[in-house]
């Protein structure tokens, strides 16, 4: 009983940086992660990279999901990664969802992004990737 409650939960921040107002994708992913037993901190629209990094720190998350449909991913993602690192959170996994042109995907991954998910991605796929990225990293017990 109490042993069950002591299990580590995967904590994920789902945030929408930038100025576009389409948060349906972020909500769908947040819900899927929740249904997979994770604790999802949802911060809503129009977050700056600074706000995202601050939330990630206070909430001590294992992963950060960024939903970007504005095309500004090549500016926003590196900034978030940089701030996480500056805060001592370089172990936090960052994944990106939204509209990302194919040629940008390898560049984002080179920066350290764990996954990039476009329209039509199965949520099961994202859930599996997040779990693998987080647990492979810390060796913590499963959710």
């Amino acid at each position, binding site marked *: *009983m*109490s*042993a069950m*409650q*002591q*299990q*580590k*939960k995967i*904590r994920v921040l789902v945030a929408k940086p930038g100025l576009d107002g389409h948060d349906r994708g972020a909500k769908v992913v*947040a*819900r899927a*992660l*929740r*249904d*997979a*037993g*994770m*604790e*999802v*901190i*949802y*911060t*809503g629209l129009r*977050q*700056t990279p*600074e*706000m995202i990094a*601050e*939330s990630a*720190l*206070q*909430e*001590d998350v294992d992963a950060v999901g960024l939903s970007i449909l504005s095309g500004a991913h090549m500016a926003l993602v590196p900034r978030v990664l940089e701030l996480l690192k500056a*805060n*001592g*959170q370089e172990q936090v996994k960052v994944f990106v969802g939204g509209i990302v042109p194919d040629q940008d995907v390898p560049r984002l991954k080179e920066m350290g992004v764990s996954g990039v998910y476009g329209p039509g991605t199965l949520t099961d796929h994202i859930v599996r990737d997040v779990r693998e990225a987080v647990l492979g990293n810390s060796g913590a017990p499963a*959710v």
Partner: protein
Amino acid sequence: MILAASVLEGDRLALARLLTQIENDTPEGRAALGELFPHTGQAHLIGVTGAPGTGKSSLVNRLARYYRQPGEDQAPRRVGVVAVDPSSPFSGGAILGDRVRMRDLAGDPGIFIRSMASRGSLGGLARTTAGVVQALDAAGFELIMIETVGAGQAEVDIARLAHTTLVIEAPGLGDDIQAIKAGILEIADILVVNKADRPGAKSTERALRGMLQLAHPIRREFQHHGLVSQLSRGGDSQPPAESSQDDEELLWIPPILQTVATEDTGIPELAQEIERHYEYLQATGDWQRREETRLKAELEQLLQEALLSRWWASMTQSRYQAVLQNLVEREISPWEAVSTLLDGGES
């Protein structure tokens, strides 16, 4: 231990990591809390509860901002926020969405917000919320606001944890019969009618005022410690002689305030009432009594958990399953099953 020392030095990442350890109830978390405990007991703990959608998060946002920028000749105070949202009973997952309303607080090092999932607890808080609050207290946050899950009628754990409990109402949620029921309204030190720009705010306030007038004579004898020890199940209440200081001016009558959190209306007045309640608690000795009641409740909870886990450790799965099977087949009653398991009778 390094974690506790870093927290005392103001390291925010160390604090965040400690809160995770506390939430997961790890040996590291327990050890650090032990080290930090002498540094606790400084903060004013403010509970914020009420039905879903009444505006708890928005009010916490505005109050926190007010405490950071209180206006001339008042020093800004450091504010911790613990916001609890429910865990799914099926997957165990949770969406913690209170930060959505707290965007104004970003970028201020004098504020620390932590979201928690209730993880199966039913009283409006998580099992480890008290520990998380203690860590923030030790880290030097002077005001700690604890936002419960959207509460219905009976989620009253917050009254055990907080010094000052705000119950948030909104117009149109219930009539005067709702207002005289037992439960959440009783635990209010301050009642807030939020969304007061909506129709019906006046009649909500009137219903609440009527409730207070009816409840007041009873409340007077019980005072706060009586109320709280009732909550802590079987706790023996203070002897009646305690209420000898029962002077009219020493009674706390919960004020009713109107606010519109989204427009920042009524916030300084609310902060002022919170301050007045703090002074009341200090002047009457209720502060000390609440501290005692809270620590006693915490001790009882931890004791129960420790006894239970010790018992589980002494129990073999096969034996437990055998007794359970007997119960399911209706060969023994639930009470007989309990005494078999506890007293080691034959199953």
